[in-house]
């Protein structure tokens, strides 16, 4: 479903990703861990198409197509979703309106019928129940005045409504207390399915106690230097990232 090969990317003239390779199959959950500055968020941003990230070498193939050639909105319509590390506040745009516009834009791009407001509300109510989110969030402007936890839950809620095939969670655990973290993880787990893959980017192992990954990769110096199963995350927790630097040789990880 996703094949990243020898990806090099730079931001503001600085090389961040230096030959990253990774393959993700349908239904798999991959955790990307690594120290600050390793390029974790850059990976999420490159995959979702944010401006300012220049790919200098390598390729990203998603469902057989060149993902990097697509505009951000086309990637979304193709099923790629990025849960932002810092969700953006958009005053004046109602959360429900925004979400319906997004869903219908995606459906339109895929040649599917758009949902009318009744159909959409029905869908939203179902998802709210699964996510255990109060519908009060829906009536507010997008992320405006939301607490850190509400913002992250709103990201997961959007994901539930948009039903992507590949969800990238960019440090979704950052800034969350343990209760909020559990709620977010529950939401993610409810969305796991044999067709849906996840790329869980995180600095700490803690999130992986609640979202159990199939594979764990260590990103350092712009490359994946170590890959393994969930026990790798525990080793990291125990020994710290310095251990990887001494121990690990760069390994183009293939899961």
């Amino acid at each position, binding site marked *: 479903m996703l094949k990243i090969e020898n990806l090099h990317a730079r931001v503001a003239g600085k090389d961040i990703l230096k030959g990253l390779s990774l393959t993700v199959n349908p239904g798999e959950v991959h955790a990307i861990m690594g120290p600050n500055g390793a390029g974790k968020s850059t990976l999420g941003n490159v995959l979702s198409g944010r*401006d300012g990230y220049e790919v200098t070498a390598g390729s990203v193939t998603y469902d057989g197509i060149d993902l990097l050639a697509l505009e*951000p909105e086309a990637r979304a319509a193709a099923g790629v979703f990025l849960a932002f590390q810092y969700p*953006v506040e*958009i005053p004046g745009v109602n959360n429900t309106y925004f979400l319906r516009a997004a869903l219908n834009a995606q459906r339109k791009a895929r040649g599917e019928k758009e949902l009318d407001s009744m159909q959409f509300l029905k869908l939203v109510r179902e998802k709210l129940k699964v996510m255990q989110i109060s519908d009060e969030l829906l009536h507010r402007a997008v992320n405006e005045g939301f607490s850190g936890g509400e913002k992250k839950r709103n990201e997961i809620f959007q994901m539930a409504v948009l039903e992507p095939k590949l969800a990238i969670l960019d440090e979704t655990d950052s800034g969350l207390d343990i209760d909020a973290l559990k709620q977010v993880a529950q939401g993610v787990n409810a969305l796991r399915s044999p067709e849906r893959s996840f790329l869980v980017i995180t600095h700490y192992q803690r999130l992986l106690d609640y979202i159990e990954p199939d594979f764990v990769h260590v990103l350092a110096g712009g490359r994946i230097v170590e890959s393994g199963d969930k026990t790798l995350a525990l080793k990291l927790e125990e020994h710290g990232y310095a251990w990887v630097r001494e121990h690990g040789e760069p390994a183009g990880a293939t899961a």
Partner: protein
Amino acid sequence: MSQPASVPFVASLGDAALPASGIAWLDALRREHLAAFAVAGLPDTRMEAWKYTALRALGQRRYANGDAQAATRAIDMAAFALPGVDGPRLVFVNGVFRADLSALDALPAGLTLQPLVQALRQDAEPLRFALSRHEPERGDAFVRLNAALAADGVVLKVAPGAKIAAPVHLVFLGAPADGELAWHLRHVIELGEGAELALVEHHAAAGEQQHLGTLVGDITLRDGAVLRHVLFQQAATGSSLIRHSRLQLGARAQAMLHVLELGGALVRHDLRVELVGDGARLDTRGVFMPHGRQHIDTQLAIRHQGLNTTSDSVWRGVADQRGRGVFRGAILVAPGADGSDASLSNKNLLLSGQAEIDTKPELEIYADEVKAAHGATVGQLDERALFYLRSRGIPLVEARALLTGAFCRAVLDDLPNAALREHLTGLLAVELPA
């Protein structure tokens, strides 16, 4: 401009035939104003009030004054239909009153609504004061031109205590003609003590044309009167519209003004508000959206004069392509106007590298115990928000429209007429150039 007579604009209108009222003082006044206009000509950008609005191009134009065929031009009523606005209506086409398009039957008790010509014919004396007043801004070229050549206009009066719920719809339509026309209208509006009125001033187009309209209006609110005024300007994109409005508020009077400036090529509105009586309150909400080569200039001047008066103004400007917006928000708190509370904010958005907005906040305070807040910004769409929307599948063009609409929304949020608010909010999105 040293030789006004050599300027085509002044030459074409400076010796226009004056409307004859048969009222000696009025005819004399009109002669006087036209002569003064012909001598002084148009202001140039060395004058502070016209610093950002150059009239050179307008000066090169020639206009025929008035439209002799206006009474028979075919007009589609759809050109000015507005949801939530179905009360009494007064329609002018190219400055000429059209009884056939108006709705003046069965006016609610306490409401007087008629064309100026008719009011003058009945009894000119009550209008004499309003029409013959000389004030500093009456030295303005367009006010002079209007005073000389405006044969008609709106006379609207609400009797003390009368509450007119159904909005009164004033429609000013520009309709295509053989050449470029100039038309002029003069309004006198008065709300008696404790009277209430909802008013929709609507500038619309019945086809593309390049006419010039000038409008001068006085609105007086007696003690305790309440006015809800929507000014919706969607004139033809080739036309020019120059307006002077003067709003005076008595004690505890309240005016709430919502302004939407969307159309026109050269648009100027001088809006002068005087909070004369103690406890008077003014709220203004406005948005202007020049695109293409439009130039939209709003000059808002608020004078706090009574005790404990309040003004709250929120304006948004959005300029795209080569559009140019000008906003002057001037607040003056006069000596003795203690306890005044004034706030004004003007935020602007530039959607293209060639668009320009000049905003000029001014604040002068000569009283004590005054609260005043004043701010203006010019910026661009938030790239992070744009990416956020796109990452959810919303195409760039739509994402830009969504954010721009949101930026303007604060202006219409508190418009009480829900049907009209919805319609205008929808227009903001449609009007947005991609």
